[in-house]
């Protein structure tokens, strides 16, 4: 009897073990279709001013766009539209803040020779400032950071802003011949 009972128990254990191995194998193949979760992200890129955008683009669409960050821009006197535009991406459903900071154009060989200038991101007036009540930011080259909160991204994920630079023509007179440079730094984050 003992011998018979022992054989039965042994047979049952074998069945359980086989079933567990089978389960694990099927779970491993079921975990492949997982990348359908929508990541919540915010970001910015500099794009060509003439590029059109899909305001409902996905993250992968945004990441695929060529970023012109670091590309040099030549200025002249008066109000001049930049060759580049700012693209903001926000699918997080939260308000974001854009920070702008830059300083006077400076002679690359003489730091005391500078040219002040201003920056307008968004619709511009004839004087180079932001149109009243428009979505955007206006800043001058004082070196202090200027921030603004763009309009809410309700129903859209992306928005494009034109960029304008303004140099008072009088500030270009009576200057030493030289190359004057500066860098506009933009950064975006959640409020």
């Amino acid at each position, binding site marked *: 009897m003992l011998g018979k009972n022992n054989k039965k128990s042994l047979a049952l254990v074998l069945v359980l073990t086989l*079933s567990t191995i089978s*389960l694990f194998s*099927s*779970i491993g193949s*079921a*975990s492949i279709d*997982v*990348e359908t*979760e929508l*990541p*919540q*992200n*915010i*970001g*910015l*890129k*500099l794009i060509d001013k003439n590029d059109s955008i899909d305001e409902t683009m996905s*993250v992968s669409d*945004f*990441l695929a766009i060529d*970023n012109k*960050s*670091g*590309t*040099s*821009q*030549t*200025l*002249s006197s008066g109000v001049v539209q*930049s060759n*580049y535009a*700012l693209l903001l*991406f926000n699918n997080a459903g939260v308000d974001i803040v854009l920070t702008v900071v*830059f300083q006077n*154009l400076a002679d690359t060989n003489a730091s*005391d*020779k500078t*040219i002040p*200038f201003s920056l307008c991101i968004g619709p511009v007036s004839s004087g180079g400032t932001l149109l009243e009540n428009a979505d955007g930011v206006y800043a001058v080259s004082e070196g202090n950071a200027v921030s603004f909160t763009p309009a809410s991204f309700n129903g859209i994920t992306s928005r494009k802003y034109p*960029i304008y*630079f303004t*140099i008072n023509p009088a500030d*270009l*007179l*009576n*200057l*030493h*011949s*030289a*190359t*004057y*440079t*500066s*860098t*506009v*730094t*933009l*950064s*975006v*984050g959640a409020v």
Partner: protein
Amino acid sequence: MKKSLVVFLSLMLTLPSVFLVATDDMPSTGNLPVLVEKAPIIAMIITNHQFTNEAEVTYEELQSVLGGDNGNLKAVTYQAVSKDITDTGYRLYVYNNTSGTLKLSVNTSQSTPLQSVLSGTNYYMTLYLRIGYLPTDNEGNYKEYNTTLNNNLPYMYVKSTTANNDGTIKIDSDKRKLSCEVTSANNSKGEVVCTCLPIYVDLQDATAAVTALDYSAKIVFDLAAL
């Protein structure tokens, strides 16, 4: 067996979602370098235009006299002169926004002496021309450059009595300094302004001159980068 399967799948679905957000590389900063190229400008003009401050004439003010022409102009004028050193009221302005030094000089091959022609005969008067601020004594009288003046201001002078065979100006070898260097000048704000060189004239001794005639001379100046 079914219950175990459901629990395990649920865990797998949650973990990859967290993993995606944590490693995503979204650009949140950008920079846009900007630059302005200021072209070199060299300009020269002779004018009796009275600027508010002749020692700090800006390029904008110079343009108002140039009439928008950045080139060089030639002054045509009749100037009464005497045997005394006389400030003609004319000024030679040089604008130079380059960091280099310019050489201002008298073009002797194109300049002519103070002369008149009567019945085919040339008559000459001695012309002594000084360009650049002259020193003065305590009474305000002009003094020669070699008496004082060591203030680094540019100056030239030329004395002519007759002409060479080809009609060009003949210059007294002992009375000449035919060129000077001109660098960029700055005002108190550090802006580039024009270098101002007044023009003085005196006749000294008129040699074989017929005083009833009208005499004229042409002095051509060259400006070139060194």
